[in-house]
């Protein structure tokens, strides 16, 4: 294939509009005669609405409607295998904190907010189940993303009992909320039975299908537009209640309606990473060779729907061990339905597994990298398939060199900088390379310029840039002659931007369409001319397809205050062909920063008696700020993969968010000798005797 293995470090095509404020995100779109909708959300986590008093709200000048279960139109709110069940004001039940219970529509933003504050809702509260520890409603889900949810290979319990070295530990991760900087936003307009929606979404095609189902109109009647997205991280992957509520409100008032969530509402009906409790058991011989791994995951879901945090999937595949068990159990709690959050399963799962591997390294007296090399999986231990490519050894070696791993004195509390304790840690990163069906059209105009069209999204991942680069390379054109159109269901359909599959999926479609166009031009056909490709989903086939990497961290810990500062992070990643060196590096670095948040800062806290969230804002829910991040670098390990898909791309969006929390956690142990197995690692956990 005539493509460079690592694409040029081209500036973002949408760079100029983003630094000048010209890029219109959903809430920036100004439509004529638009009204403003504001949600009212529940103040209990479980119970019923006893009464809705909207008299004062309705009496305000400029208030167009107050909708609650008493007067909302009947729609289809139930979920299915591909869609979450929603809260669309259909009955008086309250199932979680901050569940939408009313919608107010006003002539101005201020009037709508004021009216919303005047809606008085009385509740009959019931005692909620507020934690997975206290939940008695537990069950084992059957599958996760088409994989069996529980797998046993060999006889792990017998192998564990017989192992010379056994590590049995329990790790836990908290509820985390995505908190993209852009709050969710929807603008809805009806024209008869036709609905046009501007939506901050990672999947315009899914929004279209879901709204058609909810309002029982043909899919073709719904158009969804999403030109710029202010981050998503999985949170904008599901179609959530507010999207349909905006459309419902627009239908009731007969006007265009704009609905933007407040930051506290971002902790309500739009998903989160669920809490996990993960029991890990490793059995190894004196040389550290694994004979058995068991990884039993308990995570939470809502009382009305299912989401599984697939923390155990990674464990089936990562290390060569003859006896393996991974299980997933769900506990129902009175909280909203959880969802995918950057590296769902792999981020939380690698924290537990890689922390346990560090504990094994200490138990066996073996260097952490050497331990991983002794258990290196040459083929996928789960299904015996060959890896389509795997350059993890190179990642370990490069990362170790760049962080200065050889300077590390392995003994805990052995390295200091004045009164500060120094620590170094590492972990493996990995994420599956998936591909789903996607379509694209590549068109050359009479003037020789080219437009690439696909109904995908740009979350900040670089979609406007990399597909134009790909088409320009294939058509041998200067990049400025090629532009990308995306974010509109009038374009050829593309998948949800999730699972790190967009570059592989949309990229393969663009590759096929651009190649077809090039061949027709070579045969003498003249522009204007276009070619379309409908690339099929492909999962694996003969090969096991995964991206890999190695994460390294250097931390300083104040022994008196327990304060952890990340001084440096190094990542080395092999993810097949890289379409753009610059934007890929940024995605890797961003994933690593997500790991800093997971390791040290992020935790949504629930009141144990009421089930209400007590830190639903960015002052109480901490995300990493600039000063929390030390020097960072992400290195690209070149990797040619002839099997994974036509363009050899594995995807980079989530890989950097795996292993990063474990690298920091193991560095903190190295610095302090204190093993924190419950994230986040806050100062008080380091100061406990």
């Amino acid at each position, binding site marked *: 294939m005539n493509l460079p293995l690592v694409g040029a470090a081209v500036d973002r095509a949408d760079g100029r509009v983003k630094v*000048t404020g*010209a890029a219109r995100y959903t809430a920036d779109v100004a439509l004529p005669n638009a009204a403003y909708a504001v949600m009212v959300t529940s103040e209990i986590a479980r119970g019923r609405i006893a009464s809705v008093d909207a008299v004062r709200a309705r009496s305000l000048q400029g208030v167009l409607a107050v909708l609650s279960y008493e007067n909302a139109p009947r729609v289809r709110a139930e979920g299915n295998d591909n869609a979450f069940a929603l809260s669309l004001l259909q009955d008086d039940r309250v199932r979680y904190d901050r569940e939408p219970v009313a919608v107010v529509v006003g002539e101005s933003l201020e009037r709508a907010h004021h009216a919303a504050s005047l809606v008085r809702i009385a509740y009959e509260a019931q005692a909620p189940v507020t934690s997975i520890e206290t939940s008695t409603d537990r069950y084992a889900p059957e599958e996760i993303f088409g994989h069996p949810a529980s797998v046993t290979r060999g006889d792990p319990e017998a192998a564990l009992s017989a192992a010379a070295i056994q590590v049995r530990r329990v790790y836990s991760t908290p509820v985390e909320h995505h908190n993209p*900087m852009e709050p969710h936003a929807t603008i809805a307009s009806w024209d008869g039975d036709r609905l046009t929606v501007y939506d901050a979404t990672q999947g315009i095609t899914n929004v279209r299908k879901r709204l058609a189902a909810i309002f029982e109109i043909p899919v073709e009647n719904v158009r969804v537009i999403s030109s710029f997205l202010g981050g998503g*991280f999985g949170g904008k992957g599901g179609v959530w209640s507010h999207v349909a509520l905006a459309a419902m409100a627009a239908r009731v008032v007969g006007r265009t309606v704009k609905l933007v969530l407040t930051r506290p509402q971002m902790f309500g009906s739009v998903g989160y990473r669920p809490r996990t409790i993960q029991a890990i058991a490793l059995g190894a011989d004196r040389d550290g060779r694994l004979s058995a791994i068991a990884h039993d995951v308990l995570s939470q879901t809502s009382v009305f729907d299912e989401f599984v945090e697939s923390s155990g999937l990674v464990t089936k595949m990562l290390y060569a061990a003859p006896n393996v068990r991974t299980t997933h159990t769900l506990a129902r709690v009175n909280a909203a339905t959880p969802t995918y959050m950057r590296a769902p399963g792999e981020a939380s799962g690698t924290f537990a597994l890689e922390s346990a591997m560090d504990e094994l390294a200490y138990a066996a007296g073996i260097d952490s990298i050497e331990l991983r090399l002794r258990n290196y999986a040459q083929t996928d231990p789960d299904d015996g398939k060959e890896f389509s490519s795997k350059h993890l050894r190179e990642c370990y070696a490069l990362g170790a060199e760049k962080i200065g791993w050889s300077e590390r004195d392995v003994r805990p509390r052995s390295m200091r900088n004045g009164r500060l304790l120094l620590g170094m840690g590492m972990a493996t990163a990995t994420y599956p390379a998936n591909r789903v069906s996607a379509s694209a059209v590549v068109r050359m105009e009479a003037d020789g310029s080219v437009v690439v069209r696909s109904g995908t999204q740009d979350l900040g991942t670089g979609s406007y840039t990399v597909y134009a680069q790909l088409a320009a390379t294939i058509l041998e054109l200067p990049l400025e002659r090629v532009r990308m159109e995306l974010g509109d269901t009038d374009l050829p359909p593309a998948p949800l931007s999730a699972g790190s599959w967009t570059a592989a999926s949309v990229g393969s479609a663009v590759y096929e369409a651009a190649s077809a166009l090039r061949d027709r031009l070579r045969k003498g056909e003249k522009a204007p001319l276009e070619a379309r490709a409908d690339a099929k989903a492909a999962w694996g086939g003969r090969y096991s397809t995964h991206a890999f990497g190695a994460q390294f961290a250097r931390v300083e810990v104040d022994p008196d205050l327990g304060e952890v500062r990340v001084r440096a992070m190094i990542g080395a990643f092999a993810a097949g062909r890289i379409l753009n060196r610059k934007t890929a590096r*940024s995605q890797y670095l*961003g994933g690593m920063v*997500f790991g800093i948040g997971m390791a040290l800062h992020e935790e949504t806290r629930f009141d144990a008696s009421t089930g209400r969230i007590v830190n639903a804002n960015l002052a109480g829910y901490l995300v990493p700020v600039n000063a929390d991040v030390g020097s960072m670098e992400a290195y690209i390990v070149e990797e040619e993969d002839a099997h994974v898909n036509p363009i050899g791309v594995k995807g980079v969006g989530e890989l950097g968010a795996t292993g990063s929390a474990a690298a920091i956690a193991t560095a903190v142990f190295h610095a302090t000798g204190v093993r924190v197995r419950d994230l986040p690692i806050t100062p008080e956990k380091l100061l406990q005797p």
Partner: protein
Amino acid sequence: MNGEARELCVEPRVTLLDALREHLDLTGTKKGCDQGTCGACTVLVDGRRVLSCLTLAVMHAGASVTTIEGVARGDALHPVQDAFVEHDAFQCGYCTPGQILCAIALLQEGRTLDDAAIREQMSGNLCRCGAYENIVAAVRAVAERTT
């Protein structure tokens, strides 16, 4: 407003941020939290950094307000804008207008002496995409060129 006189009649409760976004169609200034915790709504009022969500429009009658739309000179980007593109100091771009206005003010105030100072001073502007390393590189590059 960005060097032009603009007349506006709004209710007293309208914040400067909502006045910009909903009444003047200056949507480059972003609402990230509406609570003064994220920095996305940073604008310059008489040259000083202000969180426009925490102040009312009527409090600034007669003031000089600079938003992201007023930073470039025609087609020529401000050096900080150029540096943000060159160093890929953003991904989704939602926090970027606030980051750029904050950086411009810091450079004018001479607060960008080293990386640690840049990191500390830019910490009021959250970036969930995690572009911090590149933001520091962009601000440093402009600081080095101008001193």
